[in-house]
């Protein structure tokens, strides 16, 4: 009887083991079958993961595209300039989220004019909240160390104080994009995260001399959206700036010519490099804004090939006069 029991036990054990072995073999087979790759690895562009920046522009309003305000107080001039275009209500609707992209490229103090002025950035943040914005983000992908740039430029503190949320360029916020009809922006990583889910986008940048491009203004400001080894684009600076103007369709740009960096740009480094021009431009057409802005650097629009390229690409007009700019002065 016990021998019979042993036999049964042995048989049961074997069957159990055979079952497990069978399951293991089946699992190995299924896994192999499911993961079987006859082709081998592919190279080339993964078009499925490409992103496209949304269009943030607002509807045109005749004769309310660009305003140019003279004055030395940025808070006053920017309020006036936006008022002249129809007020902040035209650009920010209640409950909307807004991304502000100031030029925070360098770890440099505000007095040197290499970065957007903190007072100006803070005032635009306040204006957005006044217009009913739910959340305002201030973000850039600077050239120098990001945290230092936001700190030393004063923008970090000023914007936070005004209620904005700072967004730093973390790795996971970059996605690849390809610009339709673009020559250079092909499968290139851009700082996409902060702009993916906001309703509006405002660019703020000072007028600066730029050794390679001639001038760095509102179009060049979008260089901050490029990730990767973006400096290779300096081989064709005019095309890349024009492509940035095609890629980014902002709600509004604010070009600050209160103090203009006349030389030694785009970093500056001395107050000697600055000249007071007491001019602030707000514009829905950044090509027009830059076309006017370059006059503050004693340049003509034709001196900056990227302006013509952007115009041909349909990003705006270099003939700002045709837009009937609204001029004003504040004290």
């Amino acid at each position: 009887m016990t021998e019979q029991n042993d036999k049964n036990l042995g048989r049961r054990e074997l069957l159990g083991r055979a079952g497990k072995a069978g399951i293991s073999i089946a699992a190995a087979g299924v896994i192999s079958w499911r993961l079987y790759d006859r082709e081998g690895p592919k190279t080339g562009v993964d078009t499925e993961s490409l992103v496209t920046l949304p269009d943030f522009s607002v509807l045109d309003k005749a004769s309310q595209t660009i305003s140019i305000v003279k004055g030395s107080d940025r808070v006053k001039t920017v309020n006036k300039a936006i008022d002249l275009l129809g007020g902040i209500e035209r650009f920010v609707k209640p409950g909307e989220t807004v991304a502000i992209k100031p030029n925070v490229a360098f770890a440099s103090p505000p007095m040197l004019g290499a970065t957007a002025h903190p007072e100006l950035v803070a005032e635009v943040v306040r204006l957005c909240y006044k217009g009913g914005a739910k959340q305002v983000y201030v973000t850039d992908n600077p050239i120098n160390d990001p945290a230092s740039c936001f700190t030393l430029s004063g923008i970090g503190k000023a914007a936070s104080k005004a209620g904005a949320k700072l967004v730093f360029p973390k790795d996971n916020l970059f996605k690849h994009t390809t610009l339709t009809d673009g020559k250079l922006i092909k499968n290139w990583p851009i700082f996409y995260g902060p702009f993916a889910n906001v309703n509006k986008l405002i660019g703020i940048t000072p007028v600066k001399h730029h050794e390679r491009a001639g001038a760095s203004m509102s179009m060049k400001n979008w260089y901050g959206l490029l990730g990767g080894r973006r400096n290779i684009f300096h081989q064709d600076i005019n095309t890349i700036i024009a492509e940035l103007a095609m890629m980014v369709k902002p709600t509004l740009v604010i070009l600050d010519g209160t103090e203009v960096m006349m030389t030694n740009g785009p970093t500056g480094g001395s107050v000697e490099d600055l000249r007071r021009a007491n001019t602030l431009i707000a514009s829905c057409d950044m090509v027009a804004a830059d076309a006017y802005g370059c006059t503050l650097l004693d340049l003509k629009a034709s001196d900056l090939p990227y302006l013509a390229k952007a115009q041909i690409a349909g990003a705006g007009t270099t003939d700002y006069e045709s837009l009937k700019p609204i001029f004003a002065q504040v004290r």
Partner: protein
Amino acid sequence: MNRSNQYSRRFAKSPIMRIVQVRRISQAFFFSLFVWFCIVATVGEKLWQLRGWPVNWFLQLDPLVAIGTILTTHTLYWPLLWALATIILTIIFGRFFCSWVCPFGSLHHFVGFLGNRKKTAAQKIQLNKYRKAQCIKYFILVVFLFMAAFPSIGVTLQMGLLDPIPLTTRSFNLVLLPIADRPANLVSVTARFYEGAWLILAIFLTAVLLNLVIPRFYCRFICPLGALFGIFGRFAIWRIGKNQSECVNCKLCERACEGGCEPSGNIRITECVLCFNCRQDCKDELISYQTKPSLAGEITNPDISRRGFVLSLAGGILAVPAVRLSNKLGSNWYHKVIRPPGALSEEEFLKRCIKCGQCMRVCPTNVIQPGGIQGGLENLWTPVLNNRIGSSGCQLNCVACGQVCPTSAIRPITLAEKLGTDEFADVGPIKLGTAFVDQNRCLPWAMDKPCIVCEENCPLSPKAIYTEECFNTVRDGILTVKKATDNTVEVEEAIVPAKFATGDYYCAVEGDERRKIAENTENTIVISSGEQFGKIPAAGSKIEVQVRLQKPCIDIEKCIGCGVCEHECPVSGRKAIRVSAENETRSADRRLLLGSHSAT
């Protein structure tokens, strides 16, 4: 009980051949086959050359290669399907691979036998006992598996460091074969060199010599593949075991136990390598290969502690971020990591390369070398091009490396893809990097010496190297005219006879075009026959001896980084023209040019 005993006794002493003899034949066969595949991995059409020999077969049979790449890439590259056969056989029969197929195992087996054959039975039993440290191999396996599987900041395939098949392939191909072939050069026309191969040899020798301490040291304590087989063999239908619970306890069964698996007592199934020595050595024939568990009891789980498992798991998870702190995949990438043509982008490459060295073995020019750790720990023994070794850089019309890569870390590209012809005309040729001229070392640029060997050897048409012509006045080359005829000038200064007679030197006279110098004595310069001065230089006036130089320049749009120029550069130490991996096709972030390519 009695009947089955008789049956097993009859089977044990099969009149035809004992099973250990069959095992030895199998080991000899597979070991010879392995060596043969190493020898024939030579580009060529002779019988002993590559032709169609399946030189990757052992690597394809290796389930660690298949499972490793599955974990990193989530695909099973088709040639690795062979591993499924190994896995199925192991699930049914146990760790047969270790004692019947594995070339490294056979080597250990043999060396361990040789080294310990004079010992007494008691000493041998002591040598082959089970040791707690045999669990280390499982921890090694877990570390490697988690490095491959856990998506922290990336995954990496590092099993090849210790996986016995890549290890043995690498050791034979990059160390033993070149040493053996050195005196006669039968396998390769010229001597083969592999940078840092001493380390590969040191590890190989250490592993082999440890058999003198404990037989099959590597298999028992280190081998992650053996550990994997141990786990797969847990449910084996047939296993070694006692067919009777009681015995005289002579322990002779453990005398030659290759796995150290304690067949005399509770046999450890995961450690048993199916050498069948116990069955051979049991005088009472109480051990058999049977479907029922050993009647003396068996242990089917690896002897690993929970703490050890958790620690090795954590180690595997931490290892990748720790290694990548060096940022060798980011901005701190090492410019000398020039990968062979068809290599995947670095991150994908590291998911597949098993450091087997097949590409380095097959490369006809010997330019593919085992990488060092300057490119990061992960770069160790991965293929990099060193144009100073080998016969001539990366040969233009060769794609051998991708054809033998067992995991497609180097894709099996066609010549058309490499050269950017036919359907690849739009994408252009595959660039491995870019050549840069070092103007401080280049003979024409820095030393006023004509050269342009690099330009001549650039294999492209049109060439990626072009030259700028210039005429430089040589040192002490401003001379005072004593007297002159229409084709000779006698000068005040002493000059080295025949120094300017090379055809590269010219005599420049103010107000006349420069004339090529045909010969010179210690005070006379003769210009080429058939030429004469347009204006005979006046006595007391100055003439200049100039050298015509062609200074090499790189057309970066064309250069493919093949390295022939670097290889040929006569400045033989630190070359005056050097390739580095900038602008390589496989990396988008190492581009140097706009719109040159759009790799991922």
